């Protein structure tokens, strides 16, 4: 039986990817941020899973306004890093896991979550920046990745509650897969940031840290938070944080007999470009 071993949460700011690609990680502006991920890269080497289920959002890259799926699961054999207008990031092609992805799609859809199945898709910074932060600059990513794209661009985005329930369905799907795979689930995006209008540049460090506390200790309660609070307190793009609830919902202490997860790592930093960066590693016990 496959199982979820840990969940990882991180912001996916595009400027972080650019800093890595352009060799700027040692600059005073970036140094404190990358220091916060040193532990994570070591942890990743010691805890390399067989598959990463990576929850992220597409930023008008693979999905234009022609097609806006709320939840889309990547079932392809591979996914190319996208050209987002600056040229594609010089990072490895993402190798998928079509067998597990299709299994999860079938299980989760039968569990009443109507996913969109994607068999051809380029992946943008939302997916590749977390991989770079956790894995550095390898020739190939350490394991296959299942991209799971959530619409957080056109409102209404899915509710925190829906995301949290979906995470639970994903866990049931993983645990019904016969092969004994170790699977990590990552939730990405956030934390507080606003990229538009006169209020651009908003950061709410106190709110972000409370979000981290509640995500760790009482995610079911956090999942009841309405969209409006995200927008008001964490900025219009802070709404990306609903995606973290998918990963948290898949942990074994939720709706099950598992113990509370171990907090292996916690980090918070302001700013990366326009954004507050938050990062957690939670291990199933």
């Amino acid at each position, binding site marked *: 039986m496959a199982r979820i071993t840990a969940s990882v949460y991180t912001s996916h700011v*595009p*400027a972080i990817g650019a800093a890595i690609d352009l060799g700027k990680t040692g600059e005073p*502006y970036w140094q404190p941020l990358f220091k916060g991920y040193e532990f994570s890269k070591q942890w990743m080497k010691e805890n390399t899973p067989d598959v990463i289920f990576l929850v992220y959002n597409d*930023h*008008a*890259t693979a999905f*234009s*306004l*022609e097609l806006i799926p709320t939840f889309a699961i990547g079932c392809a054999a591979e996914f190319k890093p996208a*050209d*987002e*207008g*600056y040229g594609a990031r010089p990072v490895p092609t993402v190798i998928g896991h079509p067998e597990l992805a299709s299994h999860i799609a079938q299980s989760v859809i039968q569990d009443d979550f109507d996913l969109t199945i994607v068999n051809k898709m380029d992946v943008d910074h939302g997916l590749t920046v977390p991989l770079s932060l956790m894995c550095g600059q390898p020739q190939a990513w350490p394991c296959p990745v299942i991209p799971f794209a959530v619409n957080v*661009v*056109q*409102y*209404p985005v899915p509710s925190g509650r829906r995301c949290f329930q979906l995470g639970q369905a994903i866990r049931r799907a993983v645990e019904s897969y016969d092969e004994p795979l170790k699977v990590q689930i990552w939730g990405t995006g956030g934390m*507080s940031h*606003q*990229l*538009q*209008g*006169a*209020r*651009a*540049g*908003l*950061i*709410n*460090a106190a*709110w972000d840290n409370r979000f981290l506390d509640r995500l760790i200790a009482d995610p079911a309660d956090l999942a009841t938070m309405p*969209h*409006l609070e995200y*927008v*008001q*307190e964490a*900025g*219009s*793009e802070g709404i990306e944080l609903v995606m973290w609830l998918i990963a948290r919902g898949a942990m074994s202490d939720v709706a099950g007999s598992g113990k509370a997860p171990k907090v292996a790592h916690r980090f918070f930093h*302001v*700013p990366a*470009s*326009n954004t*507050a960066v938050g990062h957690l590693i939670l291990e199933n016990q």
Partner: protein
Amino acid sequence: MALDKPYKNVPGTTIFDAEQSRKGYHLNQFCMSLMKAENRARFKANERAYLDEWPMTEEQKLAVLARDLNRCIALGGNIYFLAKIGATDGKSFQQMAGSMTGMSEEEYRDMMIKGGRDPKWGRN
């Protein structure tokens, strides 16, 4: 019954919902076309002619030509789409975001380094 849209009252913020998306469909799809290098080159060579290939409103075209991102957003643009114009111009996301605040590039960057905009900004 009208839909509940409490997010309309958040200061200095336009939420990109279905109503905005309908208004901005062609504006955003024009932006999307700039993900191809050959389209970026054609746009740069003659911006007005390139914009005239799209069924956008005159107001939308003028807002793009002026690089007035606030106006573009009011007319249905979404920042992730509009960012393709910035990429074509060689601008960073921080330069784009800052351009909407009335601050200089330097003032905006300094504000971010000092911890960003106060979340109480614009509230009563």
